[in-house]
Structures are given as structure tokens and as C-alpha cells.
């Protein structure tokens, strides 16, 4: 909360400054979560929690006609995750040879599905929480960006066939040392002091069809993960993740859907014991929204997650979430959101350490957020 107020005050005179080609932008949000029973996302949400603050600031400069460089620093607090640790969200040089081909190098956002590279930019979404099976807010760090490079561009499809946009990348990604996976491993007695990471490569291809606003796309990536901690290690061999998606945006209406599959076989070693953990995550969601006025937007989505590997039909194997959301833009910089979640299952987002008495199979959550961006 203090961070939110501080950034709002400090940036009032900074409003998207542009000094001789240098542009400065930023955002800060403050959230509130109240759940009917289980504690969610490491927050004491069943009592109501405001431990949910997020902020970022970026600086970009166009050195030359085709060259742009920039960096974005990010800090967040989500329950027991995050904290006073400044993260580099992205930091890259971008050379755009022409409108069909460009390259980026440095720390570059990873495209996967519809929202992966923008999932931490609250200001662009109606939703407070994106479908958590595909975009888990407590574990967004690993897929969010990678140190390496990417090529990108767009080519027209015939005369009237729309446009194909492509991105392909390779680099090194690492877990957020203060994120959810690391916390879970720490709860099992494996306390990492340096972030596990590994090679990641993949691409995204999306077709902007001749029907304006209608887009189809497909993403794929391969990732590996290795890390050592005092007393143990974690190892994930190359895993293939794929996502197929579609969206339609026209006038006041927005519709989107995505399917993702993410099989992983991780091995965690603690002392002399080695545990294999096969996971086969299948996720899909469908969402729609309507802009009632320029300031008011309403929408809903259904998100479906299940772990097919060893599926026993237990609440811990799945998560089905019905969501209703509303957003009000006070002006071009300030906005507020409210969201109701009807959760069935507890397969994602719940931690043993904040639910010592176990979990109920179903829960309901109310989330609210205010945000400021410039």
C-alpha cells in the first residue's frame, strides 16, 4: 500500500515524461483479496488481505531511426511472495530492419499464448486475475522473459489474406527466487539461494485474418530447468509446451479462448531421496467482455485446469473457475477493478503453509484492485 501511494505521489509530475527522445512510463497497483475459506496465493485471504502491491517503471530511448533500447524494473508483493527485490522485467536493444523483420537482444519477454508477455501489465486488462491455469500470478517469473534474443516481424498473406506475425526466440530463463515454485520447494526443505534456470527456446505465430479483429495463433516452447540448493537439487529435462488460441475484438466486444498443454517430469532430490513428479497440465479458457461506456467494462470467463498425470478426480487435481469482472477508468491514468471468483477444486494457487488445516474443495473469492499508470 505504501509503495502504491509513494509512486502515485512521485509520478504526478513525471506523467509519461519524454525528454529529448527518452520516454519514461510506469504503473503501480494495489490489490485486495477476500476468500470464503481457503487462503489463496500465500495471502491470509480468508481474513481479507491487502498484501498485494505491484509496480514497474521503464525508460526507453530511440538512439537511431531503427534502434531502440530500454529497460523495465519491476517490484511486487503478493502475500509471502516477492518483496523488496527489484527485478529486471525486460532490458533489450531492438533493431527493426524494416516492417517485416527485426531483432531484440537482452532480456526479452517470452510470447506464449495470448497474454504471456503482458500478463504482469495489469493496466491493459479488464481481469484482475487472468486464467490461473495458463497465467499463474504466483509463478509468472519463469516464462515471463528470458536472457537471449528473438527475431520478429510480420508479412502480408497474399493481397487480402490478412497478416502473419511471427516471433522466435532462444535464451536462458530462470525461476523467480521469491516466487511460488521456490517457496513450495522451500516448504519441502529445499531452500535455494540462487535461482534454478535453464535453456528456453520457441516461437509464436499469429494470423491476423482479413476479418478485422479476428486473430488465430499458435505458440510452442521447449524449456529445461536445473538448480542446486544446500541439501538437494531440482532437475527438469526438456519439456514441450504448446498453446493454441483465438481472439476477436471489434468495437465494444471482446472474445478470446486458448488451449494449453504443459507436460513436465521434474526430479527433486533432497538428501539421499529423489522424487519424480510427472505433471501433465491441460488448460483451457473462454472469455468475453463488453465495454458499456468508455469508462465501464464488464466481462466474464471460465477457466479449466487439470493435471492429467495421475488424475484421480480429487480437488487437488483440478481447478475450475467462473469469474465475473468489472472495471472503471476514472481517467486516462487511474482505474479500479472488482472481480468475483467461483472456484471448484484447489489444484493451483493454494499453499500448504498458509492452509495448515487443509483445504475445502470449493471456495469463493472477491478481488479488488486500483491502479495508476503513466
Amino acid at each position: 500500500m505504501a509503495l502504491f501511494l509513494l509512486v502515485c505521489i512521485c509520478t504526478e509530475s513525471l506523467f509519461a515524461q519524454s525528454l529529448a527522445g527518452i520516454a519514461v512510463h510506469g504503473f503501480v497497483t494495489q490489490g485486495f483479496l477476500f476468500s470464503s475459506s481457503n487462503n489463496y496465493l500465500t495471502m491470509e485471504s480468508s481474513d481479507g488481505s491487502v498484501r498485494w502491491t505491484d509496480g514497474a517503471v521503464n525508460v526507453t530511448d530511440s538512439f537511431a531511426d531503427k534502434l531502440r533500447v530500454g529497460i523495465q524494473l519491476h517490484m511486487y508483493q503478493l502475500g509471502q511472495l516477492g518483496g523488496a527485490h527489484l527485478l529486471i522485467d525486460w532490458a533489450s536493444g531492438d533493431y527493426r530492419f524494416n516492417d517485416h523483420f527485426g531483432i531484440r537482444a537482452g532480456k526479452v519477454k517470452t510470447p506464449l499464448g495470448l497474454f504471456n508477455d503482458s500478463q504482469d501489465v495489469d493496466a491493459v486488462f479488464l481481469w484482475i486475475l487472468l486464467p490461473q491455469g495458463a497465467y499463474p500470478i504466483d509463478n509468472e517469473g519463469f516464462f515471463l522473459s528470458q536472457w537471449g534474443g528473438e527475431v520478429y516481424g510480420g508479412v502480408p498473406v497474399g493481397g487480402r489474406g490478412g497478416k502473419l506475425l511471427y516471433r522466435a526466440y532462444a535464451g536462458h530463463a530462470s525461476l523467480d527466487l521469491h516466487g511460488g515454485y521456490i517457496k513450495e520447494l522451500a516448504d519441502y526443505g529445499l531452500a535455494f539461494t540462487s535461482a534454478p534456470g535453464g535453456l528456453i527456446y520457441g516461437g509464436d505465430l499469429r494470423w491476423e485474418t482479413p476479418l478485422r479483429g479476428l486473430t488465430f495463433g499458435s505458440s510452442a516452447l521447449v524449456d529445461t530447468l536445473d538448480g542446486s540448493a544446500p541439501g538437494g537439487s531440482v532437475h527438469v529435462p526438456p519439456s514441450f509446451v504448446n498453446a493454441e488460441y483465438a481472439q476477436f475484438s471489434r468495437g465494444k466486444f471482446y472474445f478470446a479462448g486458448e488451449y494449453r498443454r504443459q507436460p513436465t517430469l521434474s526430479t527433486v532430490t533432497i538428501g539421499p531421496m529423489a522424487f519424480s513428479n510427472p505433471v501433465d497440465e491441460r488448460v483451457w479458457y473462454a472469455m468475453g467482455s463488453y465495454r458499456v461506456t468508455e469508462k465501464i467494462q464488464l466481462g466474464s470467463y471460465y477457466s479449466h485446469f487439470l493435471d492429467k498425470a495421475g488424475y484421480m478426480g480429487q480437488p487437488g487435481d483440478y481447478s475450475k473457475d467462473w469469474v465475473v469482472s468489472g472495471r472503471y477508468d476514472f481517467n486516462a491514468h487511474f482505474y479500479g477493478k472488482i472481480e468475483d471468483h467461483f472456484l471448484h477444486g484447489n489444484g493451483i494457487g493454494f499453499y500448504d503453509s498458509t492452509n495448515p488445516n487443509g483445504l475445502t474443495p470449493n471456495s469463493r473469492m472477491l478481488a479488488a484492485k486500483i491502479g495508476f499508470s503513466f
Partner: protein
Amino acid sequence: MSQTRWLILLLGLAHCWCAASAQDVVLVANKGVQISQISNADLRAIFMGEKTRFADGSRAVPVTLKGGAVHEVFLKNHLDESPGEFRAQWRKEVFTGQGAMPKAFDSESALIEYVAATPGAVGYVSRISPQDKVKCLVAIK
């Protein structure tokens, strides 16, 4: 008719030609821009960051007003976007490191001054006067 009257008439005609109708805006560009007309598809691509070049291959530098009726009319008529959608799209580009938001101005006079001084600059205003050192572009469907 004296030369002065001819001059006034010509200037008046030029003014009328570049003045916005009640439902539209005047597209203005730096005088070094070689094209004289531009399709709405190209305008949209340039202002949404998808294209960085005009049809003749020269560099395009889009600039906008920060808000107001003229801004809204331009977005609606030429980009088919609302201010909120336009802002959200650019926020996504800016905060994911994929683009730099067009420079935005509080007033039309500041925008015209910038366009006049910046090679490749293109923007919009409600009207221009003969003294403005910019050229008008005609938008075609």
C-alpha cells in the same frame, strides 16, 4: 482585382481545403514527407506501431494529441479505435518492451510545431492556418 486580393483568395481556398469538416480532422505532416495521400489502413498501421514507414519507404513518426474531441474523432474515423482501446494497445507495447508510444501533445499548436520541425512526422489537428509550416495529407478509404 489587385494582387493582394488574389493572394487573400488563394490563401482562403488553401485554408478551406485544409480545414476539418465538422466530422473529421486535418491530417498534417512534415513538409519533407513526399506522399500527399494516405490510406486509412496505412494510417492505422503507423499509429498502432505496426508500420514505421510510409508507402514510399520513408520514415513515419506518428504524433498524437493527449485527448479531447479532435483526438477521439481521429481515432474513430481513421483507426476505428476508442481512446481506451488505443491507450490499452499502446500500454501493452510499452510495458512489454515492444514499442515506444507516439509522442503526445497537450495542444494543437505544440503538435504542429513539432510536426513542422521533425522529418517524417505525421499527426492531426482540427484546422491549420496558412502560416503553419506543415503539409496536409488526404486520407483515402
